[in-house]
């Protein structure tokens, strides 16, 4: 996360023309040369705390968005594999980000979250970028920026404190799965998943059980729609160096008509690495 931000300020990287996603190396709009005179309004993302603010939207909004995503992908897919891959990729996009985001948030001592350790609107990662932008702005926005920079200094200190306290990344399969089962699920849905199980038959297989999957509860009878969460788990794990495949399997009964088991199959090298490092 910090790597990317450092790159933002490097001007010599102009030769890179990525065609997908966000170009960190080109940077945000204020560096467009022909708009140097336009009043610069600092992007909100740099002035906001990266800590979880516990904001919520209606579950129905999410359900409508999710259903529309499903129906668009469905319309544009020729095979069920294509559908599953596309839906899974959307989940992976989020899983990638959550690894860094949730690890960082998990590093903040819980006492600090409610104290003045970090002002709720202070900048955590973007303090420097904000100041650079501030130098070239006109008086119109300077008042906003004064307060803004003050807070940045404050939080830069806090950030440096935090870096030394950063939670160590999970190296064992069971540890990172526990993190998904507990922290990731609680972050997304407000509670840990219902179960985390190791396969008794195959060494490389684990299962996360969700009795009442939140996102697919309004979609009946199509388990493929759970591929989004599969992608999210897979994205999270592979970003952390645990290559795997994830697939959804129905495990329904009278009480839980939508229960789903996410089957995680780790690649061989992941187990070999673990055996080498921690012994079999």
């Amino acid at each position, binding site marked *: 996360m910090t790597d990317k931000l450092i790159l933002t300020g490097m001007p010599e990287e102009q030769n890179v023309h990525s065609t997908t996603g966000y170009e960190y190396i080109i940077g945000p709009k204020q560096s467009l040369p022909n708009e140097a005179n336009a009043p610069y309004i600092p992007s909100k993302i740099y002035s906001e705390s990266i800590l979880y603010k516990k904001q919520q939207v209606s579950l129905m909004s999410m359900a409508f968005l999710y*259903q*529309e995503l499903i129906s668009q992908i469905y319309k544009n897919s020729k095979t069920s594999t294509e559908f599953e891959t596309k839906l899974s990729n959307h989940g992976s996009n989020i899983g990638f980000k959550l690894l860094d985001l949730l690890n960082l948030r998990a590093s903040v001592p819980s006492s600090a979250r409610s104290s003045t350790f970090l002002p709720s609107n202070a900048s955590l990662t973007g303090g420097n970028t904000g100041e650079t932008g501030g130098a070239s702005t006109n008086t119109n926005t300077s008042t906003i920026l004064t307060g803004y920079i003050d807070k940045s200094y404050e939080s830069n200190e806090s950030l440096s404190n935090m870096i030394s306290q950063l939670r160590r990344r999970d190296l064992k399969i069971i540890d990172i799965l526990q993190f998904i089962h507990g922290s990731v699920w609680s972050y997304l849905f407000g509670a840990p998943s219902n179960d985390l199980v190791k396969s008794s038959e195959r060494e490389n297989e684990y299962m996360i059980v969700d009795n009442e999957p939140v996102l697919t509860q309004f979609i009946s009878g199509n388990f493929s729609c759970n591929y989004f969460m599969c992608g999210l788990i897979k994205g999270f794990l592979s970003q952390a160096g645990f290559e795997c495949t994830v697939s959804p399997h129905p495990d329904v009964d009278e009480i839980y008509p939508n229960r789903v088991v996410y089957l995680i199959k780790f690649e061989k090298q992941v187990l070999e690495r673990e055996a080498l490092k921690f012994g079999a």
Partner: protein
Amino acid sequence: MTIYSFWIFDKHCNCIFNREWTLSSDSSSGTTNSKQNSETAKLLYGLIYSLRNITQKLSNTESGNKNDIRTISTGKYRVHTYCTATGLWFVLLTDFFQQSYLQVLQHIYSHIYVKYVSHNLLLPYDLTENQPILMRGQGTRKITNRHFIAALESFLSPIVE
């Protein structure tokens, strides 16, 4: 207190669902979705439509309180209606005894129709969508979703008799 039949009309004046119960003795002999294009359906819609035209002319719309039809009663029957802002009509035919079934109709809309029809992405939001132009009361597809029918049955059958 008993109910005789239940109807849903869409905004194109089509009956998109109906359920008719047979009187008291044998409730299972009733029919579902059999009378959509019947004379009864058209007359019923026509009745509500005409009456609404009259009531709207009578009311003082400036006040903002629309003069909506709630029930129409005869010596033996009551027709209870609930119209949503999107133009759906929910209609229940009952005996004369109970004054209002408004809550029943609202419940059907908000807990059964919205849940199993509006939220179901496999069902078109408008049943006339992609259909040959057979609008304005000349019939269209109907709601056949089994979850919808099951939920409606279990909600209404205790009231039938």
